[in-house]
C-alpha cells in the first residue's frame, strides 16, 4: 500500500478522481492500493498527520506530491521534477537534518514560513532550487519508521514573486490533473528484485550471510566480474563434499573468499602455524591477535610438578618471538 501525501485538497483532486479514491475523512481518501493524505501546510502539520496515518496501516512507500516554488530561473513553471534531497529552514536558519528522496533530481527546501519576498528567497538559493512547505515533515515521519520516501514537485511559481497565489489558484485544476498522471507513471515502475544466492548445505547466520555478500561484492569489484560469475566460480561442491557441519562449511567458504582477496592471508597463516608448532610440541601454547594489530603474544602452559615446570622453563628460554614480529611487519615474500 502506497501513501500519497499532498498539502491541499485542490492539488489532490486529480489523484482522487483518477484513482477513484473514497473519502474516509476530510483528510484521508482511500483506494485499492493507495491512500491519499491531505497534510495541510507546514512541515510539522505534515509530519504529525503522516505519522498518525502510519500507525493505522502498513505502508510500503510514501510519495509526497505537490507544488513548489522555484528558486532558480532555469526551472519552467508547470514542469514536474523528482526531488533529490529535502532540507528544512526555520526563520531563515537551515536545520541540520536533511533527507534523501531519490538518487537523482532537484533539491527542495521546506520552509517553515511562506516565502513572500525576493529577500526571503535569496538566501535559500544556495540550499536548493525548490521551496515547499511540507516535504521535510513527511520525510521525517517516513524515515523515522524506515518507510521508503520519495517526493516529486510541480513548479508553480518563482518563490518570492508577486501574484504567485493568484496564478496557483487559476492553474489549480490543470496542475492537479498533471500531478495525477505523473503519479500513475511513478506507480507503474516495477521495483527490481534483488538477487539472492542459494547456498544449500551451508548454515549462515545474519552476520555471516552479510559477510558472504560483502565478500562476493569485493571479489566482483576486484576481478571485474558479475556477481553471478563470482558465485559460479566458488568451490561450493568441494566444500560440500568435506565432512563438516553446515556452519563449518560456511566458515570454510568465507575463509576461501577472504583468502582470494587478501594476498598475504595464506602465507601469514602458514608462517604463524609453523612458528606456533615448535612451541606447541613442547606443550606451550602461543596466542596472538587475530587482526595482527597487537604485537603481544600470550604464552600459556600447564604443569603438574616441578619437573614439568623446569622442562617448560627450558622450552620457554628457547622461544623466539622474532619470526612472529617479522610476519607482523610484512616481511614476507609475495609474488
Amino acid at each position, binding site marked *: 500500500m502506497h501513501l500519497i501525501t499532498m498539502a491541499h485538497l485542490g492539488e489532490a483532486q486529480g489523484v482522487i478522481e483518477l484513482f477513484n479514491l473514497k473519502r474516509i475523512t476530510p483528510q484521508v481518501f482511500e483506494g485499492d492500493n493507495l491512500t491519499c493524505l491531505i497534510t495541510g501546510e507546514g512541515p510539522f502539520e505534515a509530519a504529525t498527520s503522516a505519522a498518525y496515518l502510519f500507525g493505522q496501516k502498513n505502508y510500503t512507500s510514501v510519495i509526497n506530491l505537490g507544488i513548489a516554488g522555484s528558486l532558480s530561473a532555469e526551472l519552467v513553471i508547470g514542469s514536474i521534477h523528482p526531488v533529490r534531497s529535502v532540507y528544512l529552514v526555520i526563520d531563515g536558519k537551515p536545520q541540520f537534518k536533511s533527507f534523501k528522496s531519490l538518487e537523482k533530481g532537484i533539491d527542495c527546501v521546506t520552509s517553515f514560513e511562506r516565502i513572500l519576498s525576493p529577500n526571503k528567497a535569496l538566501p535559500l*538559493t544556495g540550499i536548493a532550487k525548490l521551496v515547499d512547505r511540507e516535504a521535510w515533515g513527511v520525510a521525517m515521519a517516513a524515515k523515522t519508521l524506515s518507510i521508503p520516501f520519495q517526493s516529486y514537485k510541480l513548479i508553480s511559481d518563482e518563490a518570492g514573486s508577486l501574484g504567485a497565489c493568484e496564478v496557483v489558484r487559476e492553474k489549480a485544476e490543470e496542475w492537479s490533473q498533471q500531478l495525477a498522471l505523473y503519479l500513475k507513471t511513478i506507480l507503474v515502475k516495477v521495483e527490481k528484485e534483488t538477487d539472492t544466492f542459494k547456498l544449500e548445505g551451508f548454515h549462515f547466520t545474519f552476520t555471516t550471510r552479510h559477510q558472504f555478500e560483502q565478500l562476493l561484492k*569485493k571479489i566482483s*569489484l*576486484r576481478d571485474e566480474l558479475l556477481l553471478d560469475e563470482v558465485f559460479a566460480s566458488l568451490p561450493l561442491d568441494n566444500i560440500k563434499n568435506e565432512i563438516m557441519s553446515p556452519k563449518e562449511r560456511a566458515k570454510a567458504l568465507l575463509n576461501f573468499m577472504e583468502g582470494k582477496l587478501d594476498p598475504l592471508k595464506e602465507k601469514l597463516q602458514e608462517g604463524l602455524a609453523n612458528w606456533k608448532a615448535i612451541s606447541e610440541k613442547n606443550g606451550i601454547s602461543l596466542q596472538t591477535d587475530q*587482526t595482527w594489530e597487537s604485537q603481544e603474544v600470550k604464552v600459556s602452559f600447564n604443569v603438574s610438578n616441578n619437573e614439568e615446570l623446569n622442562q617448560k622453563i627450558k622450552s620457554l628460554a628457547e622461544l623466539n618471538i622474532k619470526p612472529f614480529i617479522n610476519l607482523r611487519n610484512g*616481511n614476507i615474500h609475495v609474488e
Partner: protein
Amino acid sequence: MWNKVYVEEHLLEMPRVKSILAKVKQDPIPLGSFDEIWGQSKKPYLHKRDSLNLFLAQKKGQLLKLAPDAYGQAGEPHYYFIHAYNCIYECQYCYLQGYFNTPDVVLFVNHEEILEEMQKTLDQHPNTRVWFHAGEFSDSLALTHLTGELELYHDFCRKNPNAVIELRTKSVNTKELLQLDPLKNFIVSFSLSPFKIGKSIDLKTPSTQARLKTMNELNQKGFTLAAHFDPIIYQDNFKTQYEELLNAMDELGLNKALNYLSMGVVRFTKDVYREVERNYPDSPLHSTPMIKSFDNKVRYNHPMRMWMMNTVKELALKYGIQDEAIYFCMEEHA
C-alpha cells in the same frame, strides 16, 4: 563552477574579496557569518557535483594547529594553517567527505592574521626549523588563480629562513606560483597515485601525467619539490604500477630533486569509511579486506600495510630516492 557565492557582509569592501568576486563573475549573497548557512544542514557530499557553493569568510578561532605525530618528517615542529575548507576535487578516499557536514567550499581571506600567528609561533621556536603545511582541508594550489595569497606566504618564507611552508597539492594550477622566485623553504609537494589507479579514484583532478609534467616544469625553474605516495592502495599489480610511476619520475629527473617523499597506506576513520562505501560503492578501495586498527581507523591489517610500504620504499630506493628523504606517514612505525 559555483552554484551560489556567499560573502560575509563585513568583507564586501575588502580588495581581496572584490578581486575574487570579479573573477568568479557572480553576484554575492551577503550574510553575517559563513556558518549561518555553511554546514548547518547535512548536505550529501556528492551534491558538490552540481550544486557547489562558495563562501568567502574570515577565519576565526585557531588559525594555526599543531600537526599530529608522524604528519611530516620527525624531529621538527609541524603546524598546519587553514586557508580554506573543502576542495573542488573528488578523490574517492578523501577524508573531507566525512569531516564536514557539507562539501561547500569556504575560502578564508584574512591571510595577514594567519601570517601574524605563524610569525608568533616561529618566534617561540628560536633557532629551530618550523614547518607550516597548507592543504589540510583543501588543495593548496587549485584555486590560487582566484585567491592570490601565495605571494604573502612566499614573502614570509623569504623573511624567515627558519620557516618552511609546504603547499600540498594535486593541482597543476601554477600560474600564480610561477610568478614567484624559487625558495628553498617554500616547498610544493605533489600527491601522486600510479597512472592506472589514479584515473579511477582521483576524480576531477589533473592526471598523474599532468602532475609529473608540472613537477618537471617547477623543477627546471628551481622550485623545491616533494611528493606524497599517499594513499597507497592495494591492487594485484600495485608493485608494477609504482614501478611505472617511479620510472616516469626518474626519467624526468624528479627522484633526485625530491626534498622528501612521504608514504602512507590507505586509512579511514569509521565515519569516512561509511561515507566512502555510500558514495563510491564500486570503488576499487572496497576490494581488499580492512580491519579496525590500533587507532580505531579502518585500514589493511598490519602485515599488509608494512609489506606494501616496504615494497614501495624498496622501489623508491631502487629509482634513486635517498633513504633519508623517505618517511612513513601516519603509521605507528613512522
